[in-house]
């Protein structure tokens, strides 16, 4: 192609695309997902996709040894039993959680969060549980700890090993939710001026004092988690809110739209990584 024609092509590209060709960011989730996963596979070439569900323990041997020791008899065992019992207990109206979820709620965690085209918003597993309760005349549960974490622990356990399978339906609102989650993930905020990407992309695998920063790929696979730091279980909400305040940024409310969209983006990026929850973390 002659130089003159090449320039013409580039110019038209600019005019049409309205952005430099490099930033062809016309919300093509599939392409971005492929690039995202390729980035981490290059950063950690020896890691099979399944290992990305083990966060810091996939990228640090000393930490992994301590994890394997704790996983012999994990402290979330009590929450798991409480979750199973609660999941199988009928509501006052005779229904139970099994009636709200496909396949009786067994082995479905990997499909969450999904985009609810009727309500036009991202529905996480925690939100779906509370919607189920309210649909059956029960009070919604608090989000970050307690019974909600036990229920999601049990549902995660029934999905162990099943790869994330998050879909973005052909609906502009779904694309917008994905885009909003992406924006949140890459936007720096708080006095420390970090974004999620600053630690979980750029510095993935490195130490932040005693912590090893988990790669963003598969980072939600192990939830809900028992953190030694908390001495108790916590859901994704609890982790998002505590992380926000560590950035000296005002945490949002649990199940805030931004957090749900962030979870949607992160889970979609992790398609193919198997569920490893419930998990234990430092």
């Amino acid at each position: 192609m002659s130089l003159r024609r090449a320039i013409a092509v580039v110019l038209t590209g600019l005019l049409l695309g309205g952005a430099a060709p490099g930033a062809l960011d016309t919300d093509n989730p599939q392409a971005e997902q492929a690039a995202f996963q390729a980035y981490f596979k290059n950063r950690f070439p020896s890691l099979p996709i399944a290992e990305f569900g083990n966060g810091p323990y996939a990228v640090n041997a000393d930490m992994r040894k301590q994890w394997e020791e704790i996983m012999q008899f994990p402290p979330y065992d009590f929450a798991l039993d409480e979750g199973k019992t609660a999941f199988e207990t009928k509501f006052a109206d005779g229904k139970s959680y099994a009636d709200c979820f496909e396949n009786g709620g067994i082995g479905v965690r990997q499909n969450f969060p999904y985009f609810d085209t009727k309500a036009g918003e991202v529905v996480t597993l925690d939100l779906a549980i509370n919607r189920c309760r309210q649909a059956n005349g029960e009070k919604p549960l608090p989000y970050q700890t307690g019974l909600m974490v036990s229920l999601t622990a049990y549902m995660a356990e029934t999905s162990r090993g099943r790869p994330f399978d998050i879909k973005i339906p052909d609906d502009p609102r779904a694309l917008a939710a994905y885009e909003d989650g992406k924006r949140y993930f890459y936007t720096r905020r708080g006095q420390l001026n970090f974004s999620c990407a600053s630690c979980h992309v750029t510095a993935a695998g490195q130490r932040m004092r005693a912590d090893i920063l988990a790669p963003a790929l598969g980072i939600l696979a192990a939830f809900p988690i028992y953190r030694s730091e908390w001495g108790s279980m916590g859901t994704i909400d609890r982790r998002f809110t505590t992380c926000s305040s560590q950035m000296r940024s005002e945490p949002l409310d649990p199940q805030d739209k931004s957090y749900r969209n962030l979870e949607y983006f992160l889970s979609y990026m992790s398609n193919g990584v198997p569920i490893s929850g419930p998990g234990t973390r430092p």
Partner: protein
Amino acid sequence: MRALGIAVALASLAATAHAAKQEDAQAALADARQAEAQAASYGNRWLPAEAALKAAQDALAKQAWDDAIAQANRAKALAQRAVEQSRDQEARWRDAVIR
């Protein structure tokens, strides 16, 4: 009688100074709140700004005007920094996206 007059004059002088300080403090606090509201509009409130704002309110309640002014100014500065951060990031977050 004269001594009493002077005392009264001095007292009223102090009172007006007191009142002026109070107004300054309240104005500073209003500015800080306004800056913080702007940061909130970007969904980017900083915890240290919140803390300084609260400290300013507490100081105001205790009529510690100088302290209130200092804390309010600190809150405003932090909130403004948050707004700058948000504006900057609105333009540049896409640069970080993995492609």
